Structures are given as structure tokens and as C-alpha cells.
């Protein structure tokens, strides 16, 4: 159990380092912001109680908000994503259900499973985040394309992270 906590703390620091030092510095054509830090929430253990998941996600979003000077934006997106996570896990249940020792990773449950799981949750996160950031329906087409392109890049980064990390 302790090793799970330590492992998650290390992952938290690592993902935020990548997010703040690298991704926030890259300005892809001005309007596209990929986010890799929600991967931390995706990779929390499957059996984590929902209330704990919600509180951890709230804290994760708030941490990002402090670095991005956007109090509440990331936190709101993360909490919604966390709330949807148990449902997506249920929806995406592999044949025969989850077994003890299963982790929500490509290595443990396969690429197809992880791609569906991550795509649904990241799109939920990005939709709420970008809509709240703009806070209006003016220019909805441009906002939607930002959401779409940012989601795709975020997901590609997350897949890359999954293949590069040894777990």
C-alpha cells in the first residue's frame, strides 16, 4: 500500500514538472494547450473510493490553477473528470470484470482499453476547461476546434508517457 502512495507522489511531481517546465512553455500555434497532468488522475488505482478520488482530483486541479493563475478552472475540470471516472471504468469493463492487481494502464489492460478510457475522460476535462476559460459561446467553433486538437495532442502525450515509463 505504501509503495502505491509513494509511486503516485513521484508520478504527481513528474507530471507537473513536465506540464510546467515543458508543455506550458510550448506555444503550439498560439491556441493549443495540451495538458498531461490529468494523466495523474487517470492512473490512480482502480479500487480507490470515489470520495478520495474527488478530493485528490480537486487538489490536483487546484495545484495546476496556482501555476496557471486560473483559480478554479482546472479544479472544476478535474473534479468533473473524477466524477465521471467510475462510470467510464464501469462502461469500459473488460470481459470478466476487473481483477485484483489490474491497473488502469496500457501495460495492464491493453492499448484499446486505455485509449477508450483516456479519450472519454480527457475530452470531458478539456471541454469543461476550455468552455470555462472562454466563458462565452461566442466563437464556439474556434473553441471546439481548440478542444479537439488539444485533446488529441494531450492523448498522444499520455500514450507516449505510458510507453516510455516502465510501469
Amino acid at each position, binding site marked *: 500500500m505504501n509503495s502505491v502512495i509513494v509511486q503516485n507522489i513521484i508520478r504527481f511531481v513528474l507530471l507537473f514538472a513536465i506540464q510546467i517546465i515543458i508543455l506550458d512553455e510550448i506555444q503550439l500555434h498560439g491556441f493549443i494547450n495540451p495538458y498531461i497532468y490529468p494523466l495523474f488522475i487517470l492512473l490512480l488505482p482502480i479500487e480507490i473510493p470515489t470520495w478520495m478520488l474527488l478530493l485528490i482530483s480537486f487538489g490536483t486541479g487546484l495545484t495546476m490553477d496556482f501555476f496557471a493563475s*486560473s483559480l478554479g478552472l482546472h479544479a472544476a475540470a478535474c473534479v468533473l473528470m473524477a466524477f465521471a471516472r467510475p462510470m467510464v471504468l464501469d462502461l469500459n469493463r473488460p470481459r470478466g470484470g476487473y481483477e485484483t492487481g489490474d491497473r488502469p494502464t496500457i501495460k495492464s489492460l491493453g492499448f484499446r482499453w486505455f485509449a477508450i478510457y483516456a479519450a472519454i475522460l480527457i475530452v470531458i476535462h478539456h471541454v469543461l476547461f476550455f468552455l470555462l476559460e472562454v466563458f462565452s459561446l461566442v466563437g464556439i467553433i474556434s473553441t471546439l476546434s481548440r478542444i479537439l486538437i488539444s485533446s488529441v495532442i494531450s492523448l498522444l502525450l499520455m500514450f507516449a508517457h505510458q510507453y516510455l515509463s516502465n510501469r
Partner: protein
Amino acid sequence: MQNFIQFLIRFHALFLFLILEAFCLYLVTRQHHYQRAIIYKATDELTGTVYTGITGTRDYVGLKSVNDSLAIENARLRERLLMLELMQISRPDLLSDTTWMDSTRYEVFNYRAAKVINNSTDKITNFFTINKGSADGFRPEMGVIGPNGIVGVTKRVSENFTTAMSVLHKDLRISSLIKNKNYIGTLRWTGGNPNFALLTDIPKHVNPEVGDTVVTSYYSNFFPENLMIGTITDMDLDGGSNFYNITLRLSTNFNNIKHVYGVDFHEFNELKQLEQTTYSE
């Protein structure tokens, strides 16, 4: 009662979700209020320290271009100095006249040098962080300028750091002047390309031209007048409207701001108080 508690336990996740989400939305909508300033006061010092570390490394990479732009600024200032010295020799009467006239406006501004340690251009609400704070005389609502023109307006100040709204922030409005037409409009940024901004409220009869220079106006409380903002690249009259939509190319490259000056206006508080009491009457 028993039933109610069981109901709460059964749906605890939903309730926790609703409470947290409501709190987040409250924070988002309260963005411009006092609470936000208080929460940030504590965290700004921490995130500021992290960013200082990151910036320390990043500075070396951009050293050459920073040197260049500072050298250009030096040259410009030296040229001005030379001009003033020449004037003093040739027309002492003119100079004393001019300074006397100008002093009413120019002496009230003071410049405080600082370095940008964090910056963004890819959001709709862009901010940057400066490595000086209240200990160095920074305060909220101070203009920030760079070697090539205006950069933003300070928002929150902690002891050693200041965060500022960039010109690239959808809520920032700056009173600006088309120099050779002597007409005042409002500068705003609506997102998109960080090199371009919009100038609005210029009426039809002004006839601005592509290439006209836009500078800060004499109405601004943040900036001294006549500071470079950008040049006009495009304009159109929207469907029979009486006002132009003018596109400006900003003179500051916001992807690369490093050395900036905070513009301190000595009587700012006095002026603000006076205006506030006037408007609230």
C-alpha cells in the same frame, strides 16, 4: 432521520462532487475579486520561487536577443541625451521652457526595472509574473513597459513578486491614440495571434491609414503618453457601422519579453480616490 442519513451515505459521492464543483465555479466567477487576491498572496510566493528557478536556466538561452534589444534601447536613450545636451548648448531658453512645461506631466512617473519570470501568450487571459514586488515599490494597477512598447498592467503584488495582466488579456482595455490623426480609441485583444490586437471606437471620419503608429494616450492612468503600442496593418467598417475595427501589429513581441519597467505614477492613489468619490456621488 435514519433514512436521511442513509440517503446521504448512499449518494455521498454525488454530493461531494456537487459541493466541490460549486466551489470551483464560485472561484472561477469570483476571479476578479478580493478573495482571489488573498488566496494568491500565499501561493504566489511559492510558485514565484519555482518560476525563478526555471527562469534562471532559461535566461542563458535568450541572452543574445535580450542584449540586442537592450543595446538598441541604450542607443535610443543616448541619442535623446545627446539631443537634450545639444539643445542646452544651442537654445538654453527653449530647454528650460520645455522642461518646465513637461514637468507637470513627466515628473510624476518613475520607472522600476524588473525581469519577467513567467509569461504566457496562448490563453485568452494571459498573465505574466515579475521578479519584484511590494518591497521594490510595485503595487497593483501599475503600467508595465518593455524596450519595444507597452506590455501590461500589474494585478497582484506579494513581497517579492508581482503578477500582471498582459496586453494579451481579453479584459484589459488601454486608451490609445492614433498618432498622426490625434484620435483616441480603445486597445483590446480578443484572442488568437499574439502579434495582433484590435483598436476600436475610432469613428468613420478619422480615416486611419495602414502604417499609422498607435501610442498610449494622454488619458491613461497606467502609462505615460506617447509610448509605442503598434502599427496599423488592417481596418474595416463592419456592415454600415460608424466605427472602425482596426487591426494593429503590436510592437512588443510577447513571446519574448524579459526586461520590463513598472511605471509608477506617484499620485495614483490620490487620483483614484478623487475619481472614485466623484463617480459615486
